[in-house]
């Protein structure tokens, strides 16, 4: 084997320029593929992060019937033990209560149906950064009696900060709910629907309004590892009481996952094309290598080297090219992606920047450092090398000494 490795290594460098060009093409391809995938997944990560921070969170614990029928009758009373146990699970960064229902809002002669969201203000702010969307007045405090409404609703109901908003609804177990609330803040929500209809109350105020003490419609759970959401779901599912269920953002917003999957599919097709080009490049080099050394193969077989050993030598040569190229490519890719992971590329153009900011998104191109994005490229090139190495093996299998030596 040592002889084979030595021979393969030396053979690799008998045409230095060709080997360097082949290795460079692999390095460049791995680099390009890793860079593309890192950017793609970084963008998805940022998109998911923005979307889950918009409303749903990464996971939600709910009453099993709530998702299909969102009424206050399908709520639950989370015990402090449950919340403490969820917080103990690795990767869980935050657990926050919500109570979510509807109400009719009014001011003077104007009225409007609204979505009411009772929240824990400090925790909710960590999830949705809602305080940054306040344009007038201020955000809620934990025991606040006021409300925060969108600019759309404020404009329709002709309300300003300090004015009183009337709300009528049906509370827990059919009790009638009504109240007057001071407008503490007005927000500019990037989602038009939310801007026109969403009302934030503190959790305590909302529970009082709906006569639902201790009741929540959901526990919103955040994590800093969005790739691990499914594992997290399993872990949380194991400690939940029977009446509860846990849903991921994918289940709550399947259209986002579908959008990402279809875009990812497009990216992978592009990568496929890139790898076909690499494969042909490598194949042509291997083919040339085999053709121009046919006589040599004839000679070494004539003097007693078995075909299996010659094949092994050629296999090693192809493999070495693939491995060297992909390792260098991997190393450079990780370095570059690491730099851009910590220094994302800012969008240029004022309009793009302001549009991103309006939607609560950072105006940057983000990169992902998920290890599999990088080593998958290496595995792919390695697999391509393995497949290509079948060509010399096939050629050696068919080798006729006298014909090869006439070459």
């Amino acid at each position: 084997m040592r002889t084979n490795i030595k021979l393969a290594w030396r053979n690799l460098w008998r045409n230095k320029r060709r080997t360097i060009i082949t290795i460079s093409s692999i390095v460049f391809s791995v680099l390009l593929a890793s860079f593309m995938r890192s950017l793609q997944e970084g963008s998805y990560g940022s998109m998911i992060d923005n979307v889950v921070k918009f409303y749903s969170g990464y996971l939600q614990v709910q009453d099993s019937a709530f998702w299909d029928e969102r009424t206050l009758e399908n709520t639950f009373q989370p015990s402090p033990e449950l919340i403490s146990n969820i917080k103990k699970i690795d990767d869980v960064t935050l657990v926050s209560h919500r109570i979510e229902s509807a109400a009719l809002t009014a001011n003077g002669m104007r009225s409007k149906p609204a979505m009411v969201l009772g929240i824990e203000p400090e925790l909710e702010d960590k999830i949705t950064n809602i305080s940054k969307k306040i344009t007038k007045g201020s955000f809620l405090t934990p025991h606040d009696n006021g409300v925060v409404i969108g600019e759309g609703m404020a404009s329709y109901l002709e309300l300003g900060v300090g004015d009183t908003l009337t709300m009528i609804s049906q509370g827990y177990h059919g009790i009638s709910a009504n109240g007057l609330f001071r407008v503490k803040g007005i927000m500019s929500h990037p989602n038009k629907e939310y801007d026109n209809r969403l009302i934030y109350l503190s959790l305590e105020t909302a529970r009082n309004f709906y006569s639902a003490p201790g009741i929540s419609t959901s526990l919103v759970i955040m994590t800093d590892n969005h790739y691990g959401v499914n594992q997290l779901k399993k872990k949380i599912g194991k400690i939940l009481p029977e009446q509860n269920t846990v849903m991921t953002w994918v289940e709550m917003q399947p259209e986002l996952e579908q959008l990402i999957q279809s875009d990812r599919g497009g990216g992978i097709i592009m990568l496929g094309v890139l790898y076909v080009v690499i494969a042909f490049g490598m194949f042509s080099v291997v083919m040339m290598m085999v053709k121009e050394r046919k006589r040599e193969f004839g000679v070494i077989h004539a003097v007693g080297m078995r075909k299996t050993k010659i094949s092994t030598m050629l296999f090693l040569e192809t493999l070495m090219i693939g491995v060297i190229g992909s390792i260098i490519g991997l190393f450079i890719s990780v370095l570059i992606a690491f730099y851009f992971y910590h220094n994302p590329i800012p969008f240029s153009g004022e309009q793009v920047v302001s549009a991103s900011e309006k939607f609560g998104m950072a105006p940057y191109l983000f990169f992902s450092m998920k290890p599999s994005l990088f080593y998958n490229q290496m595995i792919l090139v390695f697999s391509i090398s393995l497949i290509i190495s079948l060509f010399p093996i096939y050629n050696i299998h068919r080798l006729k000494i006298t014909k090869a030596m006439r070459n």
Partner: protein
Amino acid sequence: MKIIEIKNLRKVYNSDSVAVNAVNGVDLSFEEGEFSAIVGPSGSGKTTLLNIVGGLDDATEGSVSIDGVKINDLSARKLTDFRMEKIGFVFQAYNLIPVLTAKENVEFIMHLQGAGKKARDKRTSELLKAVGLEGMENRRPSKLSGGQQQRVAVARALASKPKFVLADEPTANLDSKSTEKLLDIMEQLNKEEKITFIVSTHDQRVVKKARRVITIEDGKVVSDERK
């Protein structure tokens, strides 16, 4: 003692549906320690005969026995091992492995045989000394002249201590001086170490050195003279 026995050997090539008898009913035998030259015009069947005797090509009919083993009956894998153990080859175009040094080319077969480093070093140094290439062990073929390369090829052919060496036109690409030197080395190895050489050639200098001259024409042995 007979080491090669060829019986009714025939090789027919079918090119463009015309059958060509490259070797046509050859019966020959070679004794240990012989220095034989096979001569004949181009296309007479010398190389084909040598290829079949060396197990590099199949015969259409007849048999070749080497050291009592009928090589026609060996599987491809066994034949490869047989060639490595029993036969040394010297080719017209030297055919050294370009990425290996002179020393590594010589010990290449010993590597295949699984010989230890000590044994390899000893044998390689003896052989390179015998072919007059002391001090050039670490040169690659591209840094050696044609004559020097052919001498490395002779050393390589002898590395596995074969029963005999088949040399196909070994002097065809060499100048007179290199030819003389190579032939002296082969003659010396033949006389002193009893190595059997079978050389196909057009070169009269080789014929002069040979103690047996076999002439082939149209695939048949037309004369077999011993000096």
